[in-house]
Structures are given as C-alpha cells and as structure tokens.
C-alpha cells in the first residue's frame, strides 16, 4: 500500500520546449499511481488529453494553457487551469470539477454525463452539446462570459449557465497565469454591447435546462426550445452553483442577481416522437 503523498510538480517544458503530450500524460498517470493527490503542471503549452480517463479523485492544477480534450472520459478529477483551455474541455465527462481561469472554446462538455465545468471567460460553438443526466448525476456548465451558436444543442439533461460578465479590467496582468487573487471583484462588470448567446440556442433539446443571464430574443432559439418563466424554485436550484462560481472567480454574488435570468427548456422529452410510423407494410 502506498501512503497518500500530497503534492508533486511536473514541468511540462523541462528542456526549453513543450513536452509531447504522451510523455506528459505518462508522467501524470505515474504520479497518480505513486499516490500523489495534487499534481501541479508548470509551463503547459496546449498538451492534449490531460487527465484522460482518470477516475482517481486527484487535483490537477495547470499553469499555462491546456490543450484539446482536457479531462476527456474522466470520472472524478478536479482540474484547475490557470490560463485558457482549447476545444472539447470535459468531453464525455462523468464526474469531477473542471475550472478554467480564462476562455474555453468549442464543444465544451460534449456528451457529459456528470461533473461540473466552470469557465471564467468566453466559449465558442456547441457548448454542452448532447449533455445528459441520470439520477444524481447532473452535469453543469457555467460560463462567466459569452458563448456562440448551437449552445445546448441536442441537450438531454443537466444545466448550462451563461452569465455575460466582463472580467476585462478585473485582471491587472493578463500575461501571467490567472489565479483567484488576481481578480479584482470590484472591476467585474456586465457585458453590454455584445450578445451573450447567439443563434440556434438549444436546437433539438429534449431534457435539461439552460439559464442565460439577460434577455434572449426569440429568433435565437433553436427547434424544440422554448423560454420558460424563471421562478423562485429556479433561483434556489441556481443559487449554490452561482455561489461556487463567485467563490472560484472572486465575483460578488449580489452582482449576479442584479440582472434577470432567462430560462430555456425543451418543448417535450420526445421531440421526434411523431416523425415516424411503425406500421408494418
């Protein structure tokens, strides 16, 4: 039996150039096998598949920018990125928490089956596509900034929250990896002159909920998505998630609730039920 060791630091750029992702992931897996529970990766420059398929409840702290597929297929890791993350963050995520102090672009949380993803900044297209929920496993994606087209497409469960916050002035030095303490809570403000979500929002949704902080024009909604009333019950569901976001990114909770949320839900859980006929001919 190995005893639980705490921290280990892995330099992803030991010889002046970025280490190959295979080598880095090998080192990560070895450290986990050796019993370390808190891995600190320094100088990460887009290495892919960090934390792929790992089910041990370890914390992986990444300084730099994470590459494609961070936390893909994983079940229970905590990944904290002090920088940005490329496409496919939390692809088919099963459990755990992925936190990004920056932007994370397209297809975040694709097919996620559980876990939570918190992104401080903006996202690209197809955020949370085909997420699903089952019993106590409800994936949650929270974006601090804006997202683009097809957010929540084919969604079958879970929750996506887009807050429309601007961290632009709140971080003094953008060149070094961002940590919680670098964010000035008084300088976080609402985005006003930019769309928070774009077209085809929740096209083909048949489960789950999307909360957008602010108004959503009807023409932005995709097929089978409708706007629903944001009730006190929704606020109670959302509250712990908002609190966690504010705690992570040093944002005053009051600021979030100053603006009204729009709730988007599916028309039915069987959107395509009437398209087909089964009669044998």
């Amino acid at each position, binding site marked *: 039996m190995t005893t639980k060791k705490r921290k280990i630091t892995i330099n992803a750029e030991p010889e002046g150039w970025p280490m190959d*992702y*295979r080598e880095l*992931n090998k080192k990560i*897996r070895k450290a986990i096998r050796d019993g370390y529970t808190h891995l600190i990766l320094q100088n990460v420059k887009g290495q*892919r*598949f960090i934390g*792929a*398929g*790992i*089910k041990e409840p370890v914390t992986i702290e990444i300084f730099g920018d994470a590459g*494609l*597929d961070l936390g*893909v*297929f*994983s*079940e229970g890791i905590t990944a904290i990125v002090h920088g940005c993350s490329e*496409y*496919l963050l939390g*692809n*088919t995520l*099963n459990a755990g928490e992925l936190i990004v102090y920056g932007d994370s672009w397209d*297809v975040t949380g*694709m*097919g996620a*089956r559980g876990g939570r993803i918190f992104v401080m900044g903006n996202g690209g297209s*197809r955020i949370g*596509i*085909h997420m*699903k*929920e*089952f019993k106590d*496993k409800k994936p949650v994606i929270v974006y601090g900034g804006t997202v683009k087209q097809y957010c929540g*497409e*084919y969604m*079958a*469960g879970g929750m996506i929250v887009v807050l429309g916050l601007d961290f632009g002035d709140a971080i003094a030095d953008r060149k070094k990896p961002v940590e919680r303490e670098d964010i000035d809570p008084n300088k976080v403000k609402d985005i006003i002159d930019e769309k928070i979500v774009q077209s085809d929002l929740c096209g*083909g949704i*048949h*489960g789950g909920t999307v909360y957008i902080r602010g108004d959503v024009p009807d023409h932005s909604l995709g097929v089978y998505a409708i706007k629903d009333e944001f009730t006190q019950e929704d606020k109670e569901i959302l509250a712990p998630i908002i609190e966690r976001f504010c705690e992570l990114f040093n944002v005053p909770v009051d600021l979030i609730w100053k603006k009204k949320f729009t709730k988007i839900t599916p028309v039915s*859980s*069987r*959107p*395509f*039920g*009437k*398209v*087909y*006929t*089964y*009669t*044998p*001919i």
Partner: protein
Amino acid sequence: MKIQDKVMPRFKVEIDLDTCNKCGRCAVNCTFDVIDFNRSEDKPVVTNTGNCVACQRCAVFCPTDAITIQEYPVVYAPHGTWTPWHRRGVCEQARTGAVLLTGLGTDRIYPTIFDSLLWDACQVTNPSIDALREPVETRTFLGRKPKKLNIREINGEFELDEIYPNKLLSTPLIIGHMSLGSISYNGHTAMLRAVNQVGTLFGTGEGGLHPDHAPFRNNIIAEIASGRFGVCPDYLNAAALEIKIGQGAKPGHGGQLPGEKVTQLISDTRGIPIGTDALSPNPQHDIYSIEDLKTLIAALHEATEYKVPVGVKIAAVNNVAAIASGIVHADADFITVDGFRAGTGAAPRVVRDNTGIPIELAIASVDQHLTNEGIRHKVTLIAGGSLRSSSDLIKILALGADVGMIGTAALIAMGCKVCQQCTTGKCAWGIATGDPIIGQRIDLDWATNRLINLFNSWTSDLDEVLGIMGIDAVESFVGNRDRLRYIGPNPAEAKILDVKHAGSRIEVGGE
C-alpha cells in the same frame, strides 16, 4: 380512421379446429394481437389477421401443427411498375404523413455479388490439405501490425520491439454491434456467453455496459457513438474500442431508441431517465474531419494507456476507399466496413433500402486502395453486411477482409424468423424486444449453444475450404483474390473486385 384507409392484410392465419387441441399456446405466444383464446367457447380465434407478420411463433409452438399462415388471398390487380409493395407504401404515408420506419436489412431484391463468385481448389500440381487430419490455422489477430519486426539479441536473450495491442480471435468471425435495448437482455447475454466460449468478440453497440456483463469485457468491442451513452472509464476497459461513424443499414444516420423502449433495464445501462428518447445525433459532434477523428482516437488511446485497439466503423459508401485511407492515417487499429444490406434495429425505410454500396465491392476496393498506399498492414479490416453463410464469409476474406462480422445470422441462430419487426420491439421470439417478460422467451443455454454451433460449423467450413485450396492459415488467404473467379453478368463488377472471369487463363509473362 376511415374505411378507405384500410389496406388488406398481408397474411392470413388459419387454425384447423379439427386438429387443434385447444391448448391456447398460440394466443399466449402471439405478441402482435392476432390470435385470442375464447374461453366461453374454449377455442382459439383469429381476431386480427391484419396484424400478422408471419413470425411463425404460433405455428411453431402449436403442438398439433394446426396453424397455417399464407399470403392473404386478396390479390392486387397485377402491375409491373406499381407493385403491391409500392402501393402499400403510398397508402401508409398518405394516411400518416410520417417517415416509414423499419427493421433488419433491406428486403428489396438487389443482386448479391457473393452469388457471382466461385473459388479455386488444388489439382495435381499442388497438393490440397486434408483439414480433418492436418492443422489449418484459423486464428487471427485484431489490431495494428508493425511493418516489420525488430528482434534484438541482448546477452543471449531475444527482445522484441514493443508491438501494438492486438486481440487474438480463435476464428475470423465476430458478432457485429447490437445494443442492449435493440436486443433483449437474454439475447445479449447469450451472444456474450457464446463469443466468450468461442474466443471471439461481440460488439455491444451504444447501449452501455450492464453490470452483469462486466465478466465478459475481454470479449466486448465497446462502441463510442455519437450519443456517448454509458461511456465512462470502466466502460472503456474492454477488448477493443470502436468509434461508430456509420452503419450499413443507415449510413449517415444516428439512432433513436424511442422513449417507450427505454425501460428500467435500458435506463440503468445507458444512464438516461426512463421514457425519454435516447437520441444519437447523426454526426459525432466532436468529429467533423479526419483530424478530429485522429483526436478522438488519440484520446481513447490515452484513456486506455495504449493497451486496447481502437477502431472505426464506417458504412460502405461511394468513397469508402479514400475514407478508409484517411482513417488509417488517423491512427486507427482496425476498420469495420458495413455493407448496405446490413441489418438494424430501426431505420427509415427509404434510407435502409437505397443507401450505400454492397460490401463485396466496398471491401475489395478498400483492400486494394490501402495495399497500393502501402498502409494495409496498419489496420485489421472487418467486413459485415449480410454474411448469410460460411461461403459468404470465405469470399469476403478472399476479397480482402481480415475478419467477417455477422448480425442477422446470429439472430437467426437464436430463433429469429426475419419478420423485420425489430422496430416495433414486439418480437415474439424474445430477441428484438425490451419487454422483460417476453425477453425471457430465449433460453440462455439453448441460444448460447446454437450460437457456438454456428461459429464452430462456419469455422470447420473454413478449414475445409482452406484445405482444398492448399492454404494452411487464414491470414495467408486474406485478400487472395486470385483464388476467386467471377461468373456473374457484369464485367465491370469483376474489374472492381479485381477478380478474373471464370475460365481465364493465367498468361505467362504478364497480361
């Protein structure tokens, strides 16, 4: 429904009450509400012959063989263009305004190229092998092969370069992907037990992994499809992983398991709530290019620490050879090509009957293309799409597949009568149903044995044929198109297959 909406029944069920012993089994066994047992008059009654699909359940289970099923004797006025099939289709769509959904492989009559091929045997100049007494190797390996083996000698010990993960198959035949949900629990379990005993693989489709099936994980090809149902680290711990891009019965189409089929069992296995539609989108939304595919393959390799072969399944479509080449360049360890006659649990009829190309042409084209590019060794080619007999299997191997894949043949072994009602989930034989009670109609031991028998007899057939050709290992036979001859009507086919016409002489000094 107006009376004009009515179409005449397809089949007529008759019970001969003189021989009937009034046991009522027919009424109990019919899942399509055709036969009822009238208790007051103590006899079975055909109440709705229009529902009959000719699955033969009642007839087979009748102890006195009193039941006959025949085509309904009300004829359509003959017409060469407007066949009854077309007339019925128009009527149904005019009534419902919906897409016709159907099951199994296409029921349209298309020429089967397998039937245009014959194979060679040894005569005089080279001796055949007596397969009953001399060994013929039928084992094969699934996975990427190195171009050459580097063997080093270090202090008298021999050391081999690290080779790619490969999975040993006792016979070049696997059962293709069928998910729990499209197939009943008993049907699924029987297939897993059979491949486990035979030493080959079964693709479990996009249905997740049922906890009871975990002991069979070394015989499971786990599928990563667009819905990602049940995909977690534990699920990835399988014999092989397969990214499903397409399936032969419905290329380009995803899948819909309708809400009424999502029962407790399916809900637990797939990880979705009871009664919701399980929708698999048509494309995988993280794969829009070969580069994206390469990323997902790499992610799966990483997640399994490079210990499991990762493959890609595609439907046989027009550009299948170029697509397969792209897949090899994306680092896949095996490619499954599914021909257009392949079966399905449910597909729009218009897609099933008209999309794709025959597996014979597809696999010959892929094999030649990859060979010409010098990358054929990098992948194992699996081919499926209505392999009806061992001869189809042997011909597909000669055309370039390393491994054959069956689906419908395995179902027929378990009692399927090819009535094509998989879509409805009402299968009276307990195969393509989610109903937990009807699903128990498959006797596990019996079905397992039948499947094992099928594998064993096809493997023996393969032994026999390799023997008469004088080839002692199936891996030497793969892609051996020179041992085939074409007797069909179409020289263009033979050219694409790269098979000579029967009677062609080998010309000395080239052609």
